[in-house]
């Protein structure tokens, strides 16, 4: 599946890399999405503008811990809105630390899973931005973009030990962790009332 990305905020080679990477990786198990995502406006924020989360996943690639907060209320309500928030992720096998330098793209949509408590589909946030990355005690690489997906599929987010919430992250240098059930922690969508 190849998804269209608005290139206006992703210059030059990074845009090309990100576009190719978006085509290569498997589609997230989620509901239908608009053909033009990563574009501001309420039509691309169908599952709400605010998410927080933190915890742990154990994909076959290796243990990973993370925390994030994203507030795209302005982005979702206008064509020129900004996005507040940050993300940190630690990939344990190589002690790789990913820290966001900003968030410049966001969308939210219904998850492919049903929240048992509400009987409605869960909620997913998909957001991206520049990041600094380092492996172990190596130098920071500031020429990286991240793209993360987090889904709130119920409470608690990691009970009875795996899922229902999910997290995944990819980097523009080619490294990628698929959307994976949480083995600890929680993802929380915060609807606007």
């Amino acid at each position: 599946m190849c998804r269209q990305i608005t290139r206006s905020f992703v210059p030059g080679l990074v845009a090309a890399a990100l576009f190719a990477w978006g085509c290569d990786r498997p589609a997230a198990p989620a509901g239908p999405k608009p053909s033009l995502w990563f574009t501001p406006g309420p039509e691309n924020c169908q599952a709400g503008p605010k998410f927080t989360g933190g915890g742990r996943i154990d994909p076959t690639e290796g243990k990973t811990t993370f925390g994030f907060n994203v507030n795209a209320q302005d982005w979702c309500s206008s064509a020129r809105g900004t996005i507040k928030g940050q993300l940190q992720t630690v990939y344990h096998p190589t002690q790789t630390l990913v820290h966001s330098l900003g968030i410049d793209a966001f969308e939210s949509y219904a998850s492919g899973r049903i929240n048992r408590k509400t009987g409605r589909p869960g909620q997913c946030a998909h957001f991206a931005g520049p990041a600094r990355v380092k492996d172990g005690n190596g130098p920071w690489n500031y020429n990286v973009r991240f793209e993360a997906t987090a889904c709130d599929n119920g409470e608690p987010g990691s009970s009875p030990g795996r899922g229902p919430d999910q997290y995944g992250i990819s980097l523009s240098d080619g490294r990628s962790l698929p959307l994976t059930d949480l083995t600890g922690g929680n993802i929380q969508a915060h609807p606007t009332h």
Partner: protein
Amino acid sequence: MRMSLFTIRPAWLGGTLWLLIGVTAALAPVAQAQSVSGRAYGAFVQSPLGTQQSAVAVLPAVTADDGAMADDAADAMSVPGTLTTEALTGTTSGGIGDAAAAQSVATVFNVNLLNGLITASSLTATVSSTSDGAQATSNALGSTLADLVVNGVPLTSGDGSIAPNTRMTLPGVGYVVLNEQLSSGDGVRTSGLTVNLIHVVLQNALTGIQTGEIIVGSASSNAAM
């Protein structure tokens, strides 16, 4: 001045009404309080020589309109004779919406305490708390101690968990509590949990008086709705 019953009753009712409004207003903040808090850190050492802490993240104030996150990281920590580690991180986040939720994570790599008395290849402390006003819960799922060895005894091989609040004596040193879990809250509106993966209490060998403590891999979260 004499007032008829007819004139007194509305005044009395009015006063009672205002009193009720006042009482309701006074109680309202308590009944509707929504809050989240969180904290995570890699390591903490307190001894007669001083206190050191590394990779400390404390969740800032969170309003109903916004979420928040804090994080910190360090390449290593060293307190000679007491503690050495490689990379440490602390992350905490929280928000308030239909439910209040906070979650914290601390990670520490290659831990060596008290010149090899306790070692571990990595520690992962993960806690989360949620409350929707009718039910409040916390858990420490995902908290593990990898390749943990205490006083020469291997306790985990690879990434493994230890029963909560496992206490072991450290002869001549004091004792250690592994996967220490401290919970709080009423389980309805409020819930909180702190996990300290390794908590060493240093004691005077003769008197038993506490002389210091070491905590490695600590994460806390609280949610109230």
